[in-house]
């Protein structure tokens, strides 16, 4: 089960089984292509490919649910601002009193929104199909320091741990008569006495955790052995290089003016 900042959704699709570095490369290359490719059909093509992969991984519905709340307001905002105020605006398609919606700005706004949608889709594709522990393990097997691997994994657990502590403090304060539920102003007032103990307990916990890690042998100068084998294959290695070359080719083509 995944908790914390991890968005990992259990599954057995080929994407779930793929090496984390393959998925990381795919994500970074998709984002790179979305921002390098100049025209909307190409950027849309990247988006369609990502949506197909999300569907193949069985997480399309989950993505659409999360993305709707995130991307619809961004798209509306970009389209509105750009179509009204972009300096390249020339062609009016909808007069609105003293303002006017312009074709050029609308195109630029929608293209920017499409690129952001690609970025979000690529990031979610990676997050939904990759356990953070697998990513850290794969990176450590490629030579990343175990200390840095620990930082990656522990950073993803900070939020649930803080929420756990906050719950305990809130329960203790409620037991002493503080009203922590009800209308927003009341909850806002209850937030202030929560904050100081939360910060202090976080500081104390950090010290105690540092001691506990020492006592558990963290930081020993030993050759770290792989926790488990993460399957990789020649096909995946070729795919990773192919994706990286595609980005380089797209960048070169863009700079040369071929696209």
């Amino acid at each position, binding site marked *: 089960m995944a908790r*914390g900042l991890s968005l990992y959704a259990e599954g057995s699709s080929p994407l779930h089984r793929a090496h984390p570095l393959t998925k990381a490369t795919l994500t970074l290359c998709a984002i790179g292509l979305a921002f390098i490719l100049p025209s909307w059909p190409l950027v849309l093509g990247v988006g369609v490919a990502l949506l197909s992969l999300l569907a193949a991984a069985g997480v399309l519905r989950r993505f659409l649910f999360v993305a709707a709340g995130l991307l619809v307001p961004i798209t509306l905002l970009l389209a509105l601002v750009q179509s009204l105020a972009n300096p390249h605006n020339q062609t009016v398609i909808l007069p609105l009193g003293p303002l006017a919606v312009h074709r050029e700005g609308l195109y630029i706004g929608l293209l920017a929104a499409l690129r952001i949608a690609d970025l979000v889709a690529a990031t979610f594709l990676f997050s939904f199909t990759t356990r953070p522990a697998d990513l850290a393990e794969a990176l450590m097997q490629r030579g990343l320091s175990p200390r840095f691997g*620990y930082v990656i994994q522990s950073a993803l657990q900070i939020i649930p741990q803080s929420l756990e502590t906050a719950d305990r403090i809130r329960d203790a304060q409620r037991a002493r008569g503080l009203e922590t539920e009800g209308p927003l102003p009341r909850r806002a007032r209850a937030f202030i006495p929560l904050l100081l103990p939360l910060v202090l307990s976080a500081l104390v916990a950090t010290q105690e955790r540092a001691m*506990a890690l*020492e*006592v558990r042998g963290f930081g020993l100068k030993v050759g770290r*052995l792989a926790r*488990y084998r993460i399957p990789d294959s020649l096909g995946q290695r070729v795919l990773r290089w192919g994706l990286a070359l595609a980005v380089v080719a797209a960048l070169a083509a863009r700079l040369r003016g071929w696209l």
Partner: protein
Amino acid sequence: MTPVIAMAAARYRYPETDHDALGPVDLAIGPGEWVGVVGPTNAGKSTLCYVIIGLAPQFFGGRLRGEVSVFGSPTASQPVNERSRRAGLLFQNPFTQLSGARERVDEEVAFGPEAHGLPQAEVEERVAEALRLTGLQDLRARHPLDLSGGQLQRLALAALLAMRPELLLLDEPTSQLDPAGSRALFDVLRGLHAAGTTIVMVEHRLEAVAAMCPRVIALGEGRLLADGAPAEVFNRPEVQASAGIPAFARLAALVGKGPPLPVTFESAVEALRG
């Protein structure tokens, strides 16, 4: 026989304080002993654990005088993570003992053995053993934060046991446990003691200390007040005045039995019948 823990005129002072939190203490604990440590708040019980494991002064700073060695190595010269190969410390708060980086109970238990660079097959064997000893097998796939306080304490112990320490220091291990959880923990400790593990247990449940620990150390204001068998230590007036006495001894005193006061359930029953 070389003692597991040897302290000679050991004193420790935390940074920016003007008095010793511990000492002078002379102490020798042999292999396979189970020693209970009792005393009031600020008696230096936790500090004793920190000094033995080496966190004081290596982590806290401050000043350690006298001699402290564990398995023959001076604590001042051996890093704490090196010492973790043979000695473990269970802290009071199990929540802060989690690595904070693992999403499953079994992965959390594996953290220490992996940090020691053990082969994966051995890590898995140790994890399975530690989970079995602490009764957490059925919870191995759970997220550590989904466990209750008692289960968390058992997880913290399992994480230590997976490193197979020859010396186990326990700082109030039952502070988060209900009576059933405490009994389960003590059962685990009995098994470890029978297998030869040296145990030093700071514990405020004096009845448990009197019942289980063949040797008891009483601390007061950082000094060693008494060191001996439970019946001897808990009958010392200075220990009774500072650390208190087990409930059975109090009961016997109320009905005029003793001195010496019986300190265990069995001896109290015998005294009350007599």
